[in-house]
C-alpha cells in the first residue's frame, strides 16, 4: 500500500474493536440484527412514550402544543442540515456505486425541510405566532442542548463510510420514529396538529427504507459492521436523551418567562413581531 493510499481508510480502534463480532455477517443478517435491536423495541416502547400519552390527553395546553411543534420544526431542519453536510462526502465506487444513495439523500433533504415548513404552517394556522420568521428567533424554538448534541454528533459522521452513517440516521433514529408519528397522529386531539404527525408516516417510512437498502447493499465487511454497531449504540442513546429532554421541556410551565412585565409586575399585553413595536398612535 502506498504512503498516501486510501485503499483502506478505516480500521478499528480500541473503541470500535469490542463491537467486532469476529466474523462477517451477511448484510441481510446484519440488517436483521440492527432492526432487532433498534426498531422492534421502539414498536413496543412508543405505546408508553410519555409524549404520546400526553398528546392523547384532553388537557394538552396550547403552550405544550406550541413547544412541541417548535422543537420538532427545528429538529426537522437540523436533520435536513445533517444530510446536506453528508452530501459533501460522496466518493462513488468504480462502477458508480453509491450514486443512487446520493440521490436518495437529496430527496430526503427536501422532505425534511418540507416537514419543517409543515410545522411552521400548523403554528400559523393555530394562531400561535403571527409570522413564520418569528419562529427563527423564538426562545421556545431553539434546539435543546440534547438536540444540539445529537445534531453535532451526526453531522460529524459526514466523513464516515456511507453505510455507517446511513444506519446511524435511518435505522437508529428515523425507523423507530415512524411508530411515534403513527401513534401521535392517531391520538392527538387537535386535528391540525394530528395531521402534521400523520402526514409524516409515509415519508419517514421511506427514510427508514433508505437505511435498510444502504445497509443491505453496502454494509458487508466485518469492520464496517463493527463501526456501525458502535455508532448506532451512541446515536440511540443521544436520541433517547433528546426525546426525554423534549418531553421535560414541553411539560415545564415556563411560558411566563417570556412575558414582558410592567414595573408593578402586571403582564404587558403581547404585541406581534419579535422586538418590533408597532406604533398605533399616528392616526392610521
Amino acid at each position: 500500500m502506498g504512503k498516501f493510499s486510501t485503499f483502506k481508510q478505516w480500521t478499528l480502534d480500541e473503541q470500535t474493536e469490542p463491537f467486532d463480532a469476529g466474523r462477517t455477517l451477511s448484510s441481510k443478517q446484519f440488517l436483521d440484527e440492527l432492526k432487532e435491536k433498534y426498531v422492534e423495541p421502539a414498536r413496543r416502547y412508543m405505546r408508553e412514550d410519555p409524549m404520546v400519552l400526553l398528546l392523547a390527553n384532553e388537557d394538552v395546553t396550547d403552550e405544550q402544543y406550541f413547544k412541541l411543534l417548535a422543537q420538532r420544526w427545528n429538529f426537522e431542519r437540523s436533520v435536513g442540515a445533517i444530510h446536506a453536510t453528508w452530501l459533501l462526502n460522496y466518493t462513488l465506487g468504480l462502477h458508480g456505486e453509491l450514486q443512487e444513495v446520493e440521490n436518495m439523500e437529496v430527496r430526503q433533504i427536501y422532505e425534511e425541510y418540507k416537514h419543517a415548513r409543515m410545522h411552521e404552517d400548523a403554528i400559523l394556522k393555530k394562531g400561535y405566532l403571527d409570522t413564520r420568521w418569528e419562529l427563527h428567533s423564538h426562545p421556545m424554538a431553539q434546539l435543546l442542548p440534547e438536540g444540539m448534541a445529537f445534531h453535532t454528533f451526526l453531522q460529524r459522521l459526514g466523513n464516515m463510510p456511507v453505510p455507517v452513517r446511513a444506519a446511524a440516521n435511518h435505522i437508529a433514529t428515523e425507523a423507530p420514529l415512524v411508530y411515534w408519528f403513527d401513534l401521535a397522529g392517531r391520538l392527538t386531539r387537535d386535528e391540525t396538529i394530528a395531521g402534521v404527525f400523520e402526514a409524516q408516516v409515509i415519508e419517514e417510512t421511506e427514510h427508514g427504507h433508505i437505511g435498510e437498502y444502504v445497509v443491505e447493499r453496502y454494509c458487508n465487511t466485518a469492520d464496517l459492521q463493527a463501526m456501525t454497531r458502535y455508532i448506532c449504540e451512541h446515536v440511540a442513546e443521544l436520541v433517547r436523551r433528546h426525546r426525554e429532554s423534549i418531553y421535560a421541556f414541553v411539560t415545564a410551565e415556563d411560558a411566563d418567562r417570556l412575558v414582558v412585565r410592567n414595573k408593578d409586575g402586571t403582564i404587558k399585553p403581547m404585541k406581534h413581531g419579535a422586538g418590533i413595536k408597532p406604533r398605533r398612535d399616528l392616526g392610521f
Partner: protein
Amino acid sequence: MDDSPSRPDDALSGTDEQLLSVVPPHLRDAARLGLTEMHPPFVMDKSKCIECGLCREVCPFTAVFLVPTRWKIMFEIERDRCRGCGGPSKAPCVRYCPSPGALVPVPDALVGA
C-alpha cells in the same frame, strides 16, 4: 385582515422609519412592493403545480400553506388570506411560479362563493 393599515400609500410616501412603525411586519413587503390593491384570489391548478413551493415563500400575505394529508403533503392557497396582490401581472406567486398556468385567479362570479 384586521391588522392591515388603512392607508398604506401614506405610509409608503413617508420615511422608512414611519413605514416600519405603521405597517405590521407581515404586511411590510406587500406595502413596499405596492401589492396592497385587492384582486380576486388565486387558486392552484393541481395538474400543473410542480410543488416547488416558491409561491409559499414569496407570498407577502402568508396565504400559501403546506397542507398535510394522510398520503401526501400538498400546497394550498387559503382563499381568505389571498388578496390577489393587484392581479396576475403583479402578484409575486404568479410572477415567480415556474409552471405557467398553475396559479389562476378565481373568476369574479365565484369570489365569495
